[in-house]
């Protein structure tokens, strides 16, 4: 029964070693999917390359369905896994800042590490920026604490908030994702990059 670390099937050191291996797989997949390129990532917001949406949503529904099945099979105790807490305004303002950082910088943190790993200087500079941004947070914490700790709403799930089962919500999410994939494939044909379209 998992999580293995919580049921003490593995030691904390093994857990860290497995985190390292998981990271290798994570980094490999991000790079191999093209997330080490800022221009490929930014394509999402102009339509010429929608890899971000396809990979992101395929991963989310794969893991979501996997978690549901692992729970049903009795392989994983879903009561023990981490559910993101929801601090309304901190999440919203954080999301806005991240979105602005994404469109200006062309990366998100995980992808910038893979870009830096293959020699993209712009990715290395982005990583440098991340450190400055996090330092602004830790140093400016007294000013930000009220926002950061305020409007706490617990750890709600969308399915429970809508009053439906996790399975039904996931089913809906899969339908929505397939709809978005269809739009994404259409957008790539409709909005080619100008420099390529001649």
């Amino acid at each position: 029964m998992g999580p293995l670390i919580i049921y003490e099937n593995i030691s904390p050191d093994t857990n860290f070693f497995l985190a390292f291996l998981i990271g290798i797989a994570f980094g490999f997949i991000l790079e191999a999917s093209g997330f080490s390129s800022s221009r490929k990532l930014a394509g999402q917001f102009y339509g010429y390359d929608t890899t971000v949406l396809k990979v992101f949503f395929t991963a989310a529904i794969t893991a979501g369905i996997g978690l549901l099945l692992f729970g049903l099979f009795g392989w994983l105790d879903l009561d023990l896994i981490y559910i993101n807490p929801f601090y309304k305004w901190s999440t919203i303002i954080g999301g806005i800042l991240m979105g602005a950082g994404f469109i200006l910088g062309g990366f998100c943190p995980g992808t910038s590490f893979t870009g830096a790993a293959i020699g993209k200087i712009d990715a290395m500079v982005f990583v440098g920026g991340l450190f400055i941004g996090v330092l602004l947070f830790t140093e400016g914490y007294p000013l930000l604490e009220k926002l950061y700790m305020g409007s706490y709403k617990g750890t709600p799930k969308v399915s429970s908030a809508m009053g439906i089962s996790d399975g039904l919500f996931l089913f809906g999410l899969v339908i929505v994702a397939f709809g978005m994939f269809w739009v994404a494939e259409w957008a790539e044909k409709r909005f080619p990059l100008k420099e390529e379209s001649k």
Partner: protein
Amino acid sequence: MSESSVPEFRKTRYFNPYVGGVALGIVLLLAFYISGRGLGASGAIKSTIVAGIDKIAPKHAESTAFYTEYAESHPNGPMKNWLVFEMLGVLIGGFISGAIHGRLKLQVEHSPKITSKKRILFALLGGILFGLGSQLGRGCTSGSALTGMAVLSVGGFVSMMFIFGTAYALAYFARKLWI
């Protein structure tokens, strides 16, 4: 600009995105099965910052509430952290993929319409905004949005909507950087 009319990212072949997505989903599922938590990235940067401040300015770290509280809640030290080990792996995994696929190259990737200098400047600015935002959001695209969505958390979906919504809303103003 005829000689550079094929953008860098079109000169190479990447995984089919749906295959990459399923693979990423399985890795995320494994993280939950093994460690009871999802993937992340920005948390490792916070750990490094806290460790760095402890080293460079120990007096400041001792007298600042944020760092003392962090030390109390992380008795094994900031670097003995799941995300730190995971992100070391990400660097290596990314490098291995780049090496296998012939993509190791020191370069600034940018649209032919802007200079390298401009790209670097905006990469720095974007990194700063993303770094600050990821702390308020308690995780970035990996830890808050992707992982948060997989566990169907409201926080994950709200994060995802505001990250992508803001990027779309600003895309028009930033278009000269990319297209």
